[in-house]
């Protein structure tokens, strides 16, 4: 029997941080505090009675809105740069078209204008049960159980799930960042540190309430991208329940460095399949030197999905992910990436 009543009331304090140090201190002082950047997810969750921050720390005045050149040909993208600004930055479009494409596959122009780079990393799952306080959810309310297991789970995980949570991370942008081996820069009470992108989000395990590996009081300040060889052979392919404005059932960020028809380097990250953008670097390495053909890509898909398991409603995701991996890698190999403005699959 569910007792929906007696929840916390929506009162919170509001602090506008003028410096990064100020923001970190405000966050570290209050475990109930949440950072407000674009607000596209946090405000929704507050209205849905899912998030009840005791304090809001508004970081919009912080100087984190620049995209900087790095000496190695890479870029450093400030945490407050909007998703639109990243996608349409000429340097991003030229050096990391996979990232630009992934961003444009998500949300709507209005949301991309408001949503920030750091916020995109920290957006929360779209699991129906997480969003509905009248139902159990270990992520929202640890120990209450998982409603999605055995329930409505069309949009849930096929990889890396636990008996406590089968939610997936909803971002498109993060799937590309995982494929590109980006680095997340965070600042906290103990100073600055770097987190490799693939270590930033975590699998649910026994603690699905924790989406990522940041510590209390830490703030994402930037994303760092190194120089790469993937500008010509890449594709972001997203499959969903309508042609636009829906979260991925399956998405694939594929990047290839191909020489004489052979794979020099390959990156494949999957969205819509797990609690984090899914990448298997060991598996990727096994394919170096192999021909960049559909046959090879089918083997890649077999390898990546070896442990995949459906939850009932989402059983289709396993074959769908297989087909999508082969297609996205084929697009990448051919140098004909998926164009997000075109709704037909290339």
């Amino acid at each position, binding site marked *: *029997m*569910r*007792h*929906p*009543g*007696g*929840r*916390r*009331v*929506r*009162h919170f304090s509001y602090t506008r941080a003028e410096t990064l140090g100020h923001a970190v201190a405000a966050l570290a002082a209050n475990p109930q505090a949440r950072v407000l950047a674009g607000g596209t997810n946090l405000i929704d969750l507050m209205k*849905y*009675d899912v998030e009840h921050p005791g304090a809001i720390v508004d970081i919009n005045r912080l100087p984190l809105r620049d995209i900087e050149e790095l000496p190695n040909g890479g870029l450093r993208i400030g945490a407050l740069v909007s998703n639109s600004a990243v996608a349409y930055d000429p340097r991003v479009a030229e050096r990391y078209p996979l990232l630009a494409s992934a961003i444009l596959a998500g949300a709507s122009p209005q949301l991309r204008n408001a949503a920030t780079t750091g916020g995109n990393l920290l957006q929360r799952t*779209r699991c*129906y*049960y997480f*969003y*509905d306080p*009248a*139902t159990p959810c270990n992520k929202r309310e640890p120990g209450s159980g998982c*409603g999605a297991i*055995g*329930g*409505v789970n*069309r*949009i849930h995980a096929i990889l890396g799930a636990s008996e406590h949570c089968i939610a997936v991370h909803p971002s498109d942008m993060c799937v590309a960042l995982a494929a590109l081996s980006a680095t997340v820069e965070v600042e906290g009470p103990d100073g600055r540190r770097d987190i490799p992108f693939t270590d930033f989000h975590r699998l649910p395990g026994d603690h699905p309430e924790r989406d990522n590996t940041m510590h209390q009081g830490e703030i994402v300040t930037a994303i760092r991208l190194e120089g790469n060889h993937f500008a010509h052979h890449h594709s972001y392919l997203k*499959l*969903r*329940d*309508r*042609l*636009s*404005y*829906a*979260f991925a*059932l399956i998405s694939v960020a594929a990047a290839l460095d191909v020489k004489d028809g052979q794979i020099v380097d390959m990156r494949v990250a999957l969205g819509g399949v797990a609690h984090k953008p899914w990448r298997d670097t060991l598996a990727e390495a096994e394919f170096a030197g192999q021909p960049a053909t559909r046959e090879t890509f089918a083997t890649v898909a077999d390898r990546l999905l070896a442990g995949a398991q459906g939850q009932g409603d989402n059983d*289709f*995701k396993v*074959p*769908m992910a297989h*087909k*999508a991996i*082969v*297609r996205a890698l084929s697009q990448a190999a051919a140098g004909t990436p998926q164009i997000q403005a075109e*709704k*037909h*699959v*290339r």
Partner: protein
Amino acid sequence: MLNEKNIFGFPLPRIDGPLKTTGTAPYAAEYHDPGMLFGHAFYATIASGRIVSIDTAKAEAYPGVVKVYTHKNRPDTASSDDAWKDEVAVPGHPLRPLENDRILYDGQPIALVIAESFEAARDAADLIQVAYEADEPHTNIEVEKAKSYVPPEARKEAFLPTDPRGDAEGAYEAAPFKIDAEYVQEGEHHNPMELFGTTVIRGEDGYLTVHDKTQGSQNSHDYVCGIFKLKPETVRVVNAYVGGAFGSGLRPKHQLFFAVMASLDLKRSVRVEMSRREMFYLTWRPATVQRMQVAADAEGRLMSVRHHAVQATSLYEDYQENVVNWSGLAYKCDNVKLSYELAKTTLSTPGDMRAPGAATGFLALESAIDELAYKVGMDPLEFRVKNFVTYDQNDDLKLTSKALDACYREGAKRFGWSKRSQEPGSMRDGHDLVGWGTATGVWEATLSPAEAKVRLFPDGKITVMAAASDIGTGTYTILAQIAAQNLGQTADRVSVLIGDSTMPKTAVEGGSWTAASSGSAVQAGCLEVKKTLLSLAQKMENSPLAGAEVEDLAIRDNRLVLDKNDQMGLAIADILGSNGMSSVEGHGKIAPDEEQAKEWVSYTHSAIFVEVKIDAELGVPRVTKIVSAIAAGKIINPKTARSQILGGVVMGLGMAMQEEGMIDHRTGRIMNHNLAEYHIPAHADVQDIEVIFVEEEDDKASPIGVKGLGEIGIVGVGAAVANAIFHATGTRHRHFPITIDKIMEGLPAR
């Protein structure tokens, strides 16, 4: 002065458009009264059972809270079901919010917090604590259909399945080609842009002005007066602007009850508005399981049709639709058997949603007809033309008009149907499989009783008054056009005052009847104006109109003249002035012709052609082209008419491919109760849609020759999409919506 803007057929932009696009058209929850109170409802989170205890102490103590209502302290209301039955009520016991401790569905309102601010009401509602005793939920139609039953009381005589004719079983057995298939359609949920909301403004005299989101101000008025035993003149209901409704606003919703209850009890103005989540607990298109058994002979003649439908309803009411009767009248067939049953579920009572019954019935019928055409080996359009019927075989009635054959021809020509190859999977475009599908739609063209007042002023200005509602369809605009045409003015001279219960009697805005009914009432009112003017003119000395009959008259340049000789006439200002009048009013009344109905019946018809392109490997579906050819009598305004059909077609796309209330059957709760996860078509899904109107001259359908367009646009679209997907992939999809995973799994082997 007459110009083309007066005439039926001119695409006049909506006269209320500027108000809406500038945000100055007020909606029900946008009215304000200083010192008003705000209500926030609290909902059950079990599907069935009872409230053991409900603790409101913390909510009551919350700053700003005025009162918390539950079943323990609800003010007295009428005790009979009859008093609670509105104009569109269905058999059963209408929901009486906060009546007792019983829970009949997840999302049932069980408390109302009234506070000085919306925020306080919402916050306090979170402090209510409930303990339930829960019973088993029953929400899966495919399980509950095992306990289906024939509803003991029919919602409407016309909804009863028509009597069997011929020998459907025998003809089926004897026929060489047959289809026996089951079709499932998941429940769909109304989500018009405007949320349900009511603002009650209490006057100093205690009279109430109720701004309600409804499709019938007088329905809400009578409902409220009945329940609270109020004198009719003490309540006025206004629905001047309605932000979409599609049938969701036919029956009064609990926020109306709550707002009026609190206003009467607390003697204050009150607003209660719903949130998007709450829209999923209301009026919905019921999940339906349909079995079609159809058979044809070797020439493609339809030999037998059996159609059995089971629809979900609630524990407390028997909502019913006409799902199956269409199968007895869409095509010529002498052996027909139709049946319709309900299954109880622990969900709220379903309700009318654009083309209720027909949208559902044609999903199955037009899928099965397509399957049968393929069995016979005929082009599916040719099969439909072959079985064309020119009368209503269900009731043996003549049709007032039926230009469906022209819709088939015009639609097919525009679509390019002749270039289609019959074999599934035989048409390609790069990676894509291409499929072309067609379907037919039918909806009833009815007239409902309606009244309107028309007032003409000496300067040629006109005021039209009726309780009619414009739910976004263009009623304001076409009523202005009709009055202008009949009184020889331009539409910009006409003020239309509608959406007010104190105006002349009009039925709820539904069933596609408003244009025909209120339009005809306005025309009748205009005729009364002319009659009065003529009698006044004939009283004048040396009247040039002395011997004239009203049929001979026209109004030109603000003069009442002989149509054939407009030198003969009098200025309207002079007619009124010499009789000491400042204006002249006509009261038009219209009602269905019962004598005519014994012999004639009217329907609107459509032929839909759909192109889908499906990625041959991934199953990604795109509906790249739709042609909808419509025969619906006379088209008054091609612009608003086209918008109606476009909207219906897009809604049909959602029904075919996206819309689905996802229920956790363990708890009986709808889980995708928001517009992020309850999918409707996005702009990218809506591609090339062409609307063709094949006009019909039909003076029997309604006095103004109009049949109505609100519903026909959606009917058949779902089946046309499914048929196109079959043509592309060779797989029949019988479970709607047809989502990408289903299509992927049904792709031909490569």
